[in-house]
């Protein structure tokens, strides 16, 4: 998994410095401006400019002055309850049965020989849950209102003192409640499934070395070897197995008569929620000067930048708050997920080599180089001991070797710099700010899974909001297609955005249409032998693309809300990220409700 830079932003950092608030306001402004213009044009067509303007503004006035203040919680509750009852009596609980059946038989089909069973199980349950719940939200929200209009039951509702706001809120809340109930049940079952699925133990066999080491029987497609620790008084009580399939077991030795029995505990290290601490990254160029970015090695990775081996190029992360209190074990665990880019095959067995140097921020204290080998497809865990050798620049400005303490000597005032270099000449290391982090501690796995499910919940609420909004003016199936389109665009928003921004090679839609019959390569400039025409085409494309960008920006990027990878890969989901997603969900909820209100308010409900 890769953690994107934008995921690291704190809540307020995102809201203000990364223009989250501004972006939201722009989307809202565009939607309302566009809505107003379109409605006014329709109004002119029907009633003339004066009367049309009056009618459009009257609807806005009625929302603010009458319907919003007149919205009653009791009615919203009644309509939510109705939506809930409707869903339950439409037997949505069948979905729950489907989920249970899937879970019951999943064990047969999931590959138990995988290197990390927990990752597989978590991904499976969370993906399964999100598909089911999103589909549920889609169907419930898109078909309910059109069905009510068709069966005319809506007429009995709207002839009561019910505001359109209440109809929309009632649906959104009611269906969200149904989804929440199902999601909670699925979440609990998922947790049990994952927990039970990975649980296993081994029996010890083949003890050697006078009962100090041994191997285990095969269980869950693997076995371990283990070493016992000899206490000061010569007794052997505890030991630990080697890491196999991403976990270890604790071994306990008990005396039973004249025999020693060895028992292995539960698997450890599978259900994790690591709390990473990220820093700021700076890149230094070949001459060792600060640079804005590293090298571009071509179309390799969108987010990583590269540093060259055997040169002064390096990447330096600065962390703050590093002290003995935060890392009570007396060591600093660092995790790396770097990429290697080879310009020649090199020593393929060993891999590309790098080195870590820890340094105080004033540059006076520096540790010795700690070499490592880049693990390209896995997280590389490095544990820096508290006592390490290094150099201190003395009063004369010369480095002087000294035994250093990590927290008191290097991390003075809690600040520390960690420098990464590539050793191998001609090879490159790809890195981004999220590729090196300190592992500050552990959060509770169950809590983290809850946060992951919260992400699914937010996606579901978004689908429901969109579905209800579309169903205020479209028929059921059309509303479903529209919501589905948003869902797909939202999930694969990056591709759509690349096309819309013009980042994808080949130009905009018009240019692409011209290129296709001409069979010109996408990376070659368009050549029609007429510069004016080419400019005109590019200009027209820009217009189309700009509209598309605006359009895509208004669609919630569903993919962003999916934090199940964090859970599966054992990262604690950042609170800032959750807060941001909750804010976005709230904004879309408001936006969809308001848009839905205008459609419902101006619709003749009896004319269907």
């Amino acid at each position, binding site marked *: 998994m890769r953690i994107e830079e934008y995921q690291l932003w704190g809540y307020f950092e995102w809201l203000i410095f990364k223009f989250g608030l501004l972006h939201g306001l722009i989307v809202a402004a565009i939607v309302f401006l566009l809505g107003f213009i379109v409605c006014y044009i329709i109004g002119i*067509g*029907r009633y003339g400019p004066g009367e049309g303007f009056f009618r459009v503004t009257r609807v806005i006035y009625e929302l603010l002055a*009458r*319907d919003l203040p*007149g919205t*009653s919680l*009791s*009615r919203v*509750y*009644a*309509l939510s*309850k*109705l939506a809930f*009852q*409707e869903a339950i*009596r*439409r037997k949505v609980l069948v979905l729950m049965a489907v989920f249970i059946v899937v879970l019951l038989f999943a064990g047969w089909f999931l590959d138990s020989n995988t290197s990390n069973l927990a990752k597989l199980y978590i991904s499976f349950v969370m993906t399964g849950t999100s598909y089911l719940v999103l589909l549920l939200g889609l169907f419930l929200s898109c078909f309910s209102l059109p069905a009510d209009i068709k*069966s*005319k*039951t*809506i*007429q*009995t*509702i*709207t*002839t*009561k*003192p*019910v*505001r359109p706001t209440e109809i929309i809120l009632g649906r959104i809340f009611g269906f969200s409640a149904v989804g929440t109930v199902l999601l909670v049940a699925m979440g609990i079952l998922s947790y049990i499934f994952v927990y039970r699925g990975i649980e296993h133990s081994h029996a010890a066999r083949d003890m050697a070395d006078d009962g100090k080491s041994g191997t285990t029987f095969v269980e869950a497609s693997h076995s371990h070897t283990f070493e016992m620790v000899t206490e000061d008084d010569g007794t052997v009580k505890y030991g630990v197995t080697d890491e196999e399939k991403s976990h270890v077991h604790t071994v306990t030795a008990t005396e039973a008569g004249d025999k020693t029995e060895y028992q292995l505990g539960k698997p450890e290290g599978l259900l994790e929620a690591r709390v990473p601490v990220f820093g700021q990254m700076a890149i230094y160029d070949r001459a060792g000067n600060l640079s804005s970015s590293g090298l571009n090695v071509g179309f390799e990775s969108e987010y990583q930048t590269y540093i060259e081996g055997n040169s002064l190029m390096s990447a330096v992360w600065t962390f703050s708050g590093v002290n003995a209190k935060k890392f009570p074990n007396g060591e600093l665990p660092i995790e790396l997920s770097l990429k290697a880019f080879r310009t020649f095959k090199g020593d393929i067995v060993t891999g590309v080599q790098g080195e870590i140097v820890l340094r105080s921020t004033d540059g006076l204290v520096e540790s010795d180089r700690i070499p490592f080998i880049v693990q390209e497809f896995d997280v590389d865990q490095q544990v820096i001991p508290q006592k390490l050798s290094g150099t201190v620049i003395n009063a004369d400005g010369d480095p002087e070797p000294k035994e250093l303490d990590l927290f008191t000597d290097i991390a003075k005032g809690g600040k520390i710099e960690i420098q990464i270099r590539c050793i191998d000449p001609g090879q490159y290391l790809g890195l981004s700010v999220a590729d090196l982090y300190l592992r500050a501690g552990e959060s509770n796995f169950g809590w983290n899974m809850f946060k992951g499910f919260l992400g699914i919940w937010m996606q579901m609420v978004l689908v429901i909001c969109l579905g209800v909004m579309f169903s205020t003016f479209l028929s059921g199936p059309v509303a479903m297609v529209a919501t589905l389109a948003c869902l797909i665009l939202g999930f694969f928003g990056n591709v759509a955005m690349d096309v819309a921004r013009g980042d994808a090679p080949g130009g905009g839609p018009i240019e692409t249409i011209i290129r296709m019959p001409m069979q010109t390569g996408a990376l070659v400039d368009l050549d029609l032998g007429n510069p004016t025409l080419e400019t005109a085409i590019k200009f027209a494309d820009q217009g189309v693309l700009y509209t598309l960008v605006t359009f895509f920006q208004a669609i919630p990027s569903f993919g962003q809300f999916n934090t199940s990878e964090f859970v599966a890969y054992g990262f604690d989901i950042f609170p800032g990220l959750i807060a941001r997603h909750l804010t976005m969900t709230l904004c879309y909820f408001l936006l969809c409700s308001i848009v839905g209100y205008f459609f419902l308010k101006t619709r*003749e*409900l*009896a*004319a269907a």
Partner: protein
Amino acid sequence: MSATSAAAQASQESFDHTDSNVVIETRNLGKTYRDFWGRKKVAALKSLDIEVQKGEIFGLLGPNGSGKSTTIKLIQGLLFPSSGRAFVFGKEARDVTKNERIGYLPEESYLYKFLNAEETLDFYGRLFDMPAAIRKERADELIKMVGLNNSRRRQLREYSKGMTRRIGLAQALINEPDLLILDEPTTGMDPIGSREMKDLIIRLRDEGKTILLCSHQLADVQDVCDRVAILHQGELRELGRVDELLKVRDVTEVHAKGLSEDLKSKIADLIKTEGGDVVSIDNPTTTMEELFLDIVQDDRPGSRPSGS
């Protein structure tokens, strides 16, 4: 029918909608259905001017497609007028707060079939923001009143048409409305139910409520309505008090018993010699039906001259 036309014209004088005795008022109310492109399809209602006074039972009468339902929907804001305006309790039809005082029984009791009678009444009661205790009490009262006490826990999908009508009526009365709008209230009801419905309508009128009902059950209209408006092809054809409308001013009806054929012919002769015309000497018929047919007897496809 010159006399009734005069009555209709008299009531078409313009009205101040703030008059507290006028419950419903329509001014030049019209509705033209348009297709997707805004082209005219049907003029369902043309320039309707009526007002319904407090405490009366007002009937809207007309054949299918005459604009009755359109009028009712325009008055309730379910449709938007193409021309003119409608006021209820002095408020614009599109203002939902007017609904606080309205009870509406739609044509086919559009209710949620997955709810039972109790849940239905509780739900609609909540929409009026009624406190739980009052809601429960009122629901109980109404269920007993409409005679559904034995089926109160059954889902509405199991209800017969008549039972659905009854629960529909109960939901219309949940808020103790001042104005009751009933769309074909007796359809699907057996004769006893129909009788009960009519008695209830009269009782509610006597309690001071205003009732607007639309029907093509002429007998019903004749039995209960104080005033009627007869619509035909979207136009108002007659409007006035039922007894006035049905009084045929140039015809004299004599009720007598035990006349011999000889005496009957003598009376006929006497009328002739005095310059009168003998129209018929016969038993009287349901004159509402005659009046109705008289207005509606154009050749139209799909006409339904009588519903009784």
